[in-house]
């Protein structure tokens, strides 16, 4: 080890060991907060979107989604594709959905001609309740009433965004049903066929594709839309743990599923605006992190500068008795690295030992997603590296400024 590094280390260790506990705690506290600013702020921003992505994946697309081609009304040869899906050993569960646009109408019995009709446009779907729940677990999202059961007839579950009490937003061209609760009779019209049904359950979700739908049991929905050939509109597939969704997609495409349907992983199916928002939030996170890094650097600069200024006499003595200025600079660099590393280690413990599991268990209730804390280890370590490097520079510069001053002036405290 070069002599200057050895002496620098010798001086740094002793300066740290015998430093005031209060000062050390304060500096390390600043470093922990800086680390959290670097990791948590951007992590929450990204986690806000990741929460939305996770929710769409969990409650709607699952791992792989097979849907209708743009120029078709439904997935042709659906029974063949469903048979293919069912035969693949990597599939943990799947659900086939019928889907048609429709309208819901309430209070039609008491409605006067002069009243505005109490209607809402909706996507009406037919599902196998048990299979749907095995894939998406949307029964968990029921906030009033109950989820559908296989034998239910003339009963629907309505998404919260279709009801005024859950989505009190007045938007031109968009209407919600007013005064509808469990047991309310509503009329559902699909493809010109109208049926009076009872609201069995209300489902609340932050995923639009889930919350803006009305759900029937598939057997009744088939008769409602008059489709008895077994062709469906969506098939959501959940793969077994450890199976790559992309590999499942490719396996389906390889077996010809792509000829009659769109086969996408949950990532492929993300709308472009969502991908753009993720990129935007990543950029914002990076910008905030950069500001945090600058603030941390300035903090360390001030701390080291004040330390070096108050120790200017001793720096002068060290130089006077023949200690190389480089060794003194290195001692300050070691001290800065120590503060950055200890701050980062405590920060890492806090992030991975508490914050990530905490936010996973208690997501932040954002209006459009349940935000989690996203902190990939690789990216976090890059941030630790950035923090250490910026701290190193911030520690070196003030030490260099003081050390280059005239030795005798430093010893005598002259300016």
């Amino acid at each position, binding site marked *: 080890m070069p*002599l200057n590094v*050895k*002496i620098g280390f*010798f001086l740094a260790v*002793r*300066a740290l*060991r*015998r*430093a005031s506990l209060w000062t050390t705690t304060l500096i390390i506290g600043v470093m922990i907060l800086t680390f959290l600013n670097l990791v948590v702020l951007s992590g929450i921003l990204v986690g806000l979107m990741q929460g939305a992505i996770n929710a769409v994946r969990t409650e709607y697309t699952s791992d792989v989604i097979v849907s209708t081609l743009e120029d078709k009304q439904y997935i042709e040869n659906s029974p063949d594709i469903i048979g293919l899906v069912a035969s693949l050993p990597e599939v943990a569960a799947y659900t086939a959905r019928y889907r048609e646009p429709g309208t819901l109408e309430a209070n039609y019995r008491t409605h006067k001609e002069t009243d505005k009709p109490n209607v809402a446009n909706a996507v009406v779907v037919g599902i196998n309740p048990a299979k749907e729940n095995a894939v998406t677990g949307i029964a968990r999202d029921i906030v009033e009433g109950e989820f559908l059961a296989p034998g239910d007839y003339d009963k629907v579950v309505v998404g919260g965004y279709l009801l005024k009490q859950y989505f009190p937003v007045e938007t031109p061209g968009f209407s919600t049903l007013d005064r509808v609760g469990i047991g309310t009779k509503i009329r559902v019209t699909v493809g010109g066929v109208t049926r009076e049904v009872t609201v069995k359950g209300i489902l609340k979700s932050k995923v639009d594709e889930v919350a803006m739908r009305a759900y029937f049991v598939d057997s009744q929905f088939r008769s409602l839309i008059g489709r008895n050939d077994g062709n469906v509109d969506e098939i959501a597939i959940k793969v077994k743990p450890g199976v790559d969704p992309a590999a499942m997609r490719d396996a389906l495409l390889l077996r010809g599923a792509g000829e009659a349907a769109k086969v996408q992983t949950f990532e492929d199916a993300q709308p472009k605006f969502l991908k753009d928002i993720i990129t935007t939030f990543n950029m914002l996170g990076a910008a905030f992190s950069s500001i945090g890094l600058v603030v941390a650097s300035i903090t360390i600069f001030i701390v080291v500068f004040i330390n070096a200024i108050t120790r200017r*006499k*001793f720096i002068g*003595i*060290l*130089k*006077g*008795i*023949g*200690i*190389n*200025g480089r*060794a003194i600079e290195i001692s300050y660099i070691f001290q800065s690295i120590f503060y950055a590393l200890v701050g980062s280690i405590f920060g890492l413990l806090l992030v991975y030992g508490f914050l990530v599991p905490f936010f996973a268990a208690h997501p932040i209730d954002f209006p459009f997603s349940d935000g989690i804390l996203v902190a990939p280890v690789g990216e976090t370590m890059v941030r630790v590296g950035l923090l250490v490097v910026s701290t190193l520079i911030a520690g070196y510069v003030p030490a260099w400024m003081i050390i280059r001053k*005239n*030795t*005798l002036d430093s*010893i005598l405290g002259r300016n």
Partner: protein
Amino acid sequence: MIEVKKLIRTFKNGDVETPVLKGIDFAVPDGQFVAIMGRSGAGKSTLLYQMSLLDEPTGGSVVIDGHNTHSMSADERMRFRLNRFGYVFQDYALLPELTALENVALPLLMQGLARGAAYRQATEALENVSLGHRLHNLPSQLSGGEQQRVSISRAIAHKPKILFADEPTANLDNESSRVILDIFKALHRAGQTIIMVTHEEEFARESERVVKLDDGQIISDTKHR
């Protein structure tokens, strides 16, 4: 041998120039114990700083063992100070976060000695000034006299050619001052060159030679023995 030739040091403060040393000429042969005396502002400390390479003169030169220090780079001067000089300052100038042993060992480590050897040599130096029982005390845990003895140990542990001392007893009581002076005398007897600035006649009398300064010039140069 230190030769001071036509040494001039002038301090500038804006347009105001204050000459402190006005052409000093004198030489100190090896092994001599020199006391530099003078009233406050006479230039005695400034002369010591020029001779010990802590400051650079405005004019003239300091030649040490044939090396003209004026032509040395900052690094060379630093190495010269480390390897050939020892310093004892008025206010001890110990590093507060280092123990007595570490303070003394530091220049030895900088010279490249292994830690074990440096600590052995430092321990020996501290034992020589009767501080063998205070090795692991911080300066704040030592009395003024003890701190000055640590400072002397640091100055002599690496066996420097010249020991510079700037008012080494100014902050000490009579008893502690006497101890310090006895150490200097013992070092001198062992052949150590010592150049000491002092304003105390009593201690100057213990040296071998007294150089008196006034207004930046030598007004007397007396050998006692």
